[in-house]
C-alpha cells in the first residue's frame, strides 16, 4: 500500500548531533498535532521521542554524529513514530522497569528515559533491521512509538 504523503513525514539527519533535539521535537509537534492526536498525547510523544533520541546520541553514538531517521505516520486508529539509528543494537524493551522501591541513587538515568517512554506511550515496539545500504552492515535499530487516538487499545 502506497503511503499517503499527507499522512506520513520523515526527518532524516545523516549526522545527527545533540543540538538537533530541538528540531526533532519541532518535527513531532508539527506533524502529530496535524495527524489528530490530542495535545497531551502530542506532548507525551515529544518527550518520549526526545528521550529515545537523547539515548541514541549520548549512549549509542557516544556523542559522535550519527545517522538518525524519524518517520511519523497517521494510521486508522493511531499515530506511530519510528526512530531509526545505526548505533549498536539496543532493545529498550529489554531494560527492566526501574523498581520504585529501589533508592533513586541506584537507578540509571538512561533507564529513566526508557521509563518515561513506557509511561507516556501506548505501545512500544522494537526491531533490529539489517540495512544493506550501510557499508558496515550494522543493524538499524528501529524503535516504534504508538499513540492511539482513543486511549490504549
Amino acid at each position: 500500500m502506497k503511503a499517503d504523503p499527507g499522512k506520513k513525514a520523515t526527518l532524516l539527519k545523516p549526522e545527527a548531533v545533540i543540538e538537533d533535539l530541538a528540531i526533532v521535537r519541532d518535527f513531532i509537534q508539527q506533524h502529530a498535532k496535524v495527524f489528530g492526536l490530542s495535545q497531551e498525547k502530542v506532548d507525551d510523544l515529544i518527550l518520549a521521542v526526545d528521550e529515545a533520541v537523547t539515548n541514541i546520541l549520548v549512549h549509542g553514538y557516544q556523542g559522535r554524529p550519527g545517522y538518525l531517521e524519524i518517520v511519523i505516520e497517521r494510521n486508522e486508529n493511531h499515530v506511530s513514530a519510528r526512530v531509526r539509528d545505526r548505533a549498536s543494537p539496543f532493545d529498550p524493551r529489554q531494560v527492566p522497569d526501574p523498581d520504585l522501591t529501589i533508592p533513586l541513587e541506584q537507578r540509571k538515568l538512561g533507564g529513566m528515559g526508557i521509563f518515561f517512554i513506557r509511561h507516556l506511550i501506548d505501545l512500544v515496539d522494537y526491531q533490529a533491521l539489517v540495512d544493506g545500504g550501510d557499508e558496515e552492515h550494522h543493524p538499524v535499530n528501529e524503535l516504534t512509538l504508538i499513540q492511539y487516538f482513543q486511549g490504549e487499545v
Partner: protein
Amino acid sequence: MEMEVEQRQGSVTVTVLKLKGNVDGSNYQQVIQKGDELYQTGTRNLLLDLAAVPFLSSAGLVALHRLSLTLRGSSQPEPESGWQALGDISKDLDQGYQANLKLLNPQPRVMKTLEMSGFTNFLEIFQDADTAIATFMG
C-alpha cells in the same frame, strides 16, 4: 536557553536562578556549570525558577539532581557520570524535602516530568517567590 541570577534576602540569602527555554540533553550541562559557579561564589540556597521552561527531559533532571548535590557540598562527579548515577537522592528522600534547593512555578509539562520521576518527593515546589524564599532556613 538563557539564565538570570538574582539575589534575594529572606532569613538567609537566597539565589534565584531563572531558566528561560527548554532544558534537554544539549544544554543541561550549562545548568550544572551555573550551579557550580554559584556555589563557588557563595550560594548555599537556590530557588530555581522554572516558569519560563516549557520542556524539561530526563537530562534536565540530571541537572536538578546535580544542583541538589552541589548545594549540599557533596563531591563533584564528572558531568558525564550524571548519566550513570543519581547520587544521594535517597538520603534526601529519607530526610524529606531538600533544604537548599527549591523549585518555583514549573509549567504543567515540566511538572509531569518531575512527578513521573519522583522528584516531587524531595524537591519542594512553590508558586510564589516570596513564599518560597521565606522557607529557606540556611
